[in-house]
């Protein structure tokens, strides 16, 4: 009993000290006000792991909102569900001078479903509070306590999670039993935590002070890859009446396989028979898998329902078979079950999906690093990956959603980290050929054919099954030219492992060429102009380009007879930089004006000082792309 008593008095002490803080906003050091929309004056996070099914999180946070852009930083959002209960919340609001103006309690919080917008049903809920203050600066102080009935997921510490927040003081205290085995992952933290051990408790404390806000810089690596953070995982855990232990990916993958995925693969006999007949005439495993995948795509659709441990555990294959829908876990598990029927081995893989590539941390295993499930078939060396939640995506193609990153395969032998295939600069192609005609009045008509592959296939996939009217509406945004009109639009989808979309458009651009004083003004590059990037001086972070690409445009303009010749100005351009290469050329061949453009943009991480070069490169490309030609007309 004694140590608990000590702990309580400690907390009590902390509270009394805290409430005597002075929240006068003038006390914020000026280096912390610079570029900040809000300043965390003090944040104390204490996690007390009393038992695997009793983890208490208590937070005291004082944040000063400096201007309107900072309003949202004062919002408090707390999730809760069957395994997470909110024990208490209260808080105060102080004005600029640090005088208490308002108090609030749990009853002032709105309580809403935590539905994420794409799930049909999610059983977790949120309580949230946003103070309505209009006079800046103001300070909000929150005190809250949450009880977790599990210790598989322990809240991380991220003292500064956004660029425009500065931090005066922040600390993270983790209390466990001396016998608990912990794994701790710290990032960008200098030094060691303060450690106190007695026979009942082990207390670890991390602290930071004076973190200034940072200016957002375009093309930076994701904040998560460099911000200060502490993550903790315990060896033995409990979660919704399941328990287990792990210290690495191998063991965590094994637990997933043995516990969460167990007994989920039953299929009704009719389906087993259908699959057997379906693949009977296919010779290779890959061809069989393709048939099965297409069957699955036709039969199912993605519907997300997340209840309790259902967040980590799929519903059974027979359920998906009956309903014809499921979430990523259910659909992967279902596809895996179908493949089992044909005797094809596959792995259930946990991945962090999203356009930005994020790998699972090879040196630190934990439960919540992934947000999606995909399927991997080893196929005796011809490794093939399947995305099971889309009805459109080709067999064997993962798309930019899950490309080029480390994922956890949960197999009968335990977890294995695997890398998904990369979409390279040379593969991410957009090849365009247009044959256009300029009419004497400046109108331009003609046909344009564009082939998209690699990551550029992805960018265009959503268009292909839309209704024609909808396609034209979306195309008017892609090819944003005044009054552009699409007479016909046609898409061909080549569903290979390296898929392609071929877009053929017949278009009209009234008055695209402007006639003025017997001259024709024509912007040669009508469809593919490189955007400029913002000019940031004194760049601090590396330049990160997530994915490279290659664009090649050839546009043939058939000129009207009224054009006088030999008037072509010097306009060819060749640029080369570590960021890529650019070529544009114009050739006049009798009545044909041929414009050729090629842009290769490289991916990678480049040193901060190269940003100026990146800026120069994109600006020069933009200038060249905006080139206008002036052609004289015969009198």
């Amino acid at each position: 009993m004694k140590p608990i008593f000590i702990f309580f008095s400690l907390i009590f002490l902390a509270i009394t000290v805290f409430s005597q803080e002075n929240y006068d906003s003038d006390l914020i050091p000026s280096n912390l006000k610079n570029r900040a929309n809000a300043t965390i004056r003090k944040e104390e996070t204490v996690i007390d792991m009393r038992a695997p099914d009793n983890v208490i999180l208590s937070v005291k946070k004082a944040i000063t909102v400096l201007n309107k852009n900072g309003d949202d930083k004062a919002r408090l959002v707390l999730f809760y569900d069957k395994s997470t209960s909110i024990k208490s919340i209260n808080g105060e609001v102080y004005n600029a001078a640090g005088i208490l103006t308002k108090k609030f309690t749990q009853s002032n919080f709105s309580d809403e479903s935590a539905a994420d917008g794409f799930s049909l049903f999610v059983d977790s809920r949120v309580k949230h509070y946003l103070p309505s203050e209009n006079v800046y600066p103001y300070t909000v102080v929150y005190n809250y306590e949450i009880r977790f009935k599990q210790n598989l997921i322990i809240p991380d510490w991220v003292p500064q999670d956004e660029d425009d927040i500065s931090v005066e003081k922040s600390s993270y205290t983790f209390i466990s039993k001396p016998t608990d085995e912990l794994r701790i992952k710290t990032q960008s933290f200098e030094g060691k935590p303060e450690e106190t051990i007695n026979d009942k408790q082990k207390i670890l404390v991390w602290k930071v002070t004076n973190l200034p806000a940072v200016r957002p810089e375009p093309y930076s690596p994701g904040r998560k890859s460099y911000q200060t953070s502490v993550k903790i995982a315990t060896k033995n855990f409990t979660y919704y009446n399941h328990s287990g232990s792990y210290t690495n990916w191998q063991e965590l993958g094994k637990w997933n396989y043995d516990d969460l995925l167990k007994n989920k693969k039953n299929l009704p006999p009719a389906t087993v028979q259908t699959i057997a007949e379906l693949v009977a005439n296919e010779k290779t495993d890959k061809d069989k898998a393709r048939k099965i995948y297409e069957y699955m795509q036709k039969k199912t659709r993605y519907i997300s329902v997340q209840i309790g441990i259902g967040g980590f555990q799929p519903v059974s294959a027979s359920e998906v078979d009956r309903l014809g829908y499921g979430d990523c876990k259910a659909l992967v598990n279902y596809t895996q079950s179908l493949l089992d029927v044909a005797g094809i081995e596959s792995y259930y893989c946990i991945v962090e999906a999203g356009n930005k590539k994020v790998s699972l941390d090879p040196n630190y295993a934990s439960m919540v690093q992934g947000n999606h499930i995909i399927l991997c078939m080893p196929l005796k060396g011809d490794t093939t990956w399947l995305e099971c939640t889309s009805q459109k995506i080709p067999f064997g193609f993962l798309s930019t959603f899950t490309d080029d990153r480390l994922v956890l395969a949960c197999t009968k032998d335990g977890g294995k980290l695997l890398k998904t295939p990369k979409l390279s600069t040379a593969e991410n192609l957009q090849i365009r050929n247009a044959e256009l005609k300029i009419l004497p009045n400046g109108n331009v008509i003609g046909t344009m054919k564009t082939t998209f592959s690699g990551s550029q296939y992805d960018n265009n996939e959503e268009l292909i099954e839309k209704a024609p009217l909808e396609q034209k509406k979306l195309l008017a945004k892609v090819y944003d030219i005044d009054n552009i009109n699409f007479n016909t639009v046609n898409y061909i989808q080549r569903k290979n492992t390296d898929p392609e979309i071929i877009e053929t458009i017949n278009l009209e651009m009234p008055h695209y060429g402007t006639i003025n004083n017997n001259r024709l003004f024509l912007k040669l590059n009508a469809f593919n102009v490189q955007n400029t990037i913002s000019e940031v001086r004194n760049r601090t972070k590396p330049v990160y380009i997530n994915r490279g690409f290659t664009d090649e445009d050839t546009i043939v303009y058939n000129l009207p007879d009224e054009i006088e010749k030999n008037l072509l100005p010097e306009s060819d351009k060749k640029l080369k930089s570590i960021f890529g290469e650019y070529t544009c050329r114009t050739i006049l061949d009798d009545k044909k004006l041929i414009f050729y453009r090629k842009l290769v943009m490289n991916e990678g991480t480049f040193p901060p000082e190269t940003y100026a070069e990146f800026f120069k490169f994109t600006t020069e490309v933009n200038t060249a792309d905006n080139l206008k030609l002036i052609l004289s007309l015969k009198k």
Partner: protein
Amino acid sequence: MRKISLLIIFSFSLFTTYAQNFNFGTITLDDIDFDRNKIDSNANAVVLKEFGTASVQISDRTGSTELIFEYHVKIKIFNKEGYEQANVVIPTYKDGTREELISAIRASTFNYENGGFVESVMDKKSIFTENKSKYTVLTKFTLPNIKNGSVIEYSYRLESPNLFNFKTWEFQSDIPKVYSEYLVYIPAIYNYNVSLRGFNKLSDTRSELAKECMRINGTPIDCSKIWYIMKNVPAFVEEDYMTAASNFKSAIHFELSDQQMLYGGSQKYTKTWKDIDYELTSEKSLGAQMKRKDLFKDAMPAILKNSTDDLSKAKAIFEYIKKQIKWNNYLGKYSEDNIKKALDLRSGNVADINLSLISALSAANLDAEAVILSTRENGIVNKLFPVISDFNYLIAKVNINDKSYLLDASEPLAPFGLLPLRCINDQGRVINLKKPSYWIDLVAGQKTSTSYIMEGKLEANGKIKGTITTHSTGYAALNKRTEIKKYSSPDEYVESLDERLPKIQILKQQIKNIDSIENILTEIYDVEFSPIANASNDDLFFNPFFINPVSKNPFKLSMRTYPVDLGAASDERVIINIVLPGKHEMTEKPKDLAIGLPNGGGRYMLKTLVEDNSLSFSQILQFNKAIYQPDEYPYLKEFYSKIIQNQKADVLLKKTK
């Protein structure tokens, strides 16, 4: 038991009369083969048939009168984009004492396989109830085995204690409908005002008497039985520059006007404006709060110490209230508690703030009234009869000499007489403590204009250096001030502006009157840029449209169904004077242009000339109206198109020796 048997007879009689609900699960080959080209070749899904019925009955559960609404629909799904029609969400309302209930949900998917229909019945387990917020419950379900070509069918029953608005029926939704029918039974003891909104006409409507359709305490009551039918209803597609969708969506709306009491007498709900005037002026959270002159007696001398005439008094009071009470981001036509509390807390909703303003103006012996209105997002108010629930906002009106000013003190950056854009929505109703109420147009009380004046010099190194001075008024100033105020300092605002303009460098800046909002907002930027795109020989190419160019046509669609609502009239002028090194001749230039919209709706003028050593350029773009009707749309589109074409042309200067 009596009630139930009555119901059965009732539904039987329904069977034999006019149209009727269709049987669940009667899918035909016509449904499966339905060709979407018959209604909309772009449809991803189509409502084949939709039937709803609403009536008033005594609830077994609560013993009080309740609205019973039954809904039944059959939808054909054509492709994957249409699959979302199989995910159904039914929102219902609840509060502490009353709630709406959904029951009897039935749903099936029908697929035509191997020459026969296969029905997949939705499991009751697949129905989820989500308590979305304090007042909203969502009933959600999804249908099984959806494929291209599936026909889905579902029905449910809603019980609602809310009789006031009966049950709105939306004929139009995001997919087209082949047939939509609504049948209502309105007991003779209730009188409803019924309004049909939207651009589509009813295909058919009919009414008849239904004898003894319900019984209250043994007394039989007759009903009006009314059918509303719409056929081939197009999908509702939202367009840009459009106010609230509810203004335009085809739907039937109801509001209870009065109820006959069983034992004589009647209770009025929707009333004449005379009744509403009496009600609002005597309402303790509205009329009573307009009379609280006492609250300002003590402060008034200090507020008015520098004011002599009535207008300057009104302005001083307006500024005082803006500083005194901060808006808590809630709308409303009623004070949350009372204005004294709002003044004490220095925080309140829109009504708190503007009722305080009215009381304060009255305390200074100025003639102040209240105006209730509906915000742009809330839709346009019904003007055929008073629908008090349509109004969600209250502002002040002060009359000085022959002029009147509309005031909203909830927006600290809005000058005297300029309502925030959210209030500019058709008409509001003026509520006076002594006189009858009347309608007033809600228009911007100040002109919205921006002018850019650039004085520059073309330097020997090919760069242009100069000063751009921008003056903004009206909404242009309000929007800009709001934007600047989002940053910690004007310097940080300019820094981000500079970053957004990669080809122009801002060397020095000055922003005047950020806080003196009654004055013109002025920005002065010293800039440098290299505008010469392709210089060869001694020729200088130069595109003069670098300040706020119109590069994109905001109107891309070829057709427009709904009015274009720009919010307010506007005026933008650009004047550029550039001193050139030495004598130049202008061999090319954008055409001098003067074009206009029909009926003085707007104009665009452009003039470029070189005189002596200087290039001068002037451009005016004016929109004289806030709202353009659909028939004016092609002109607007063409107007923009002409401007864009003209702005593509460059100035070409040749040095003359």
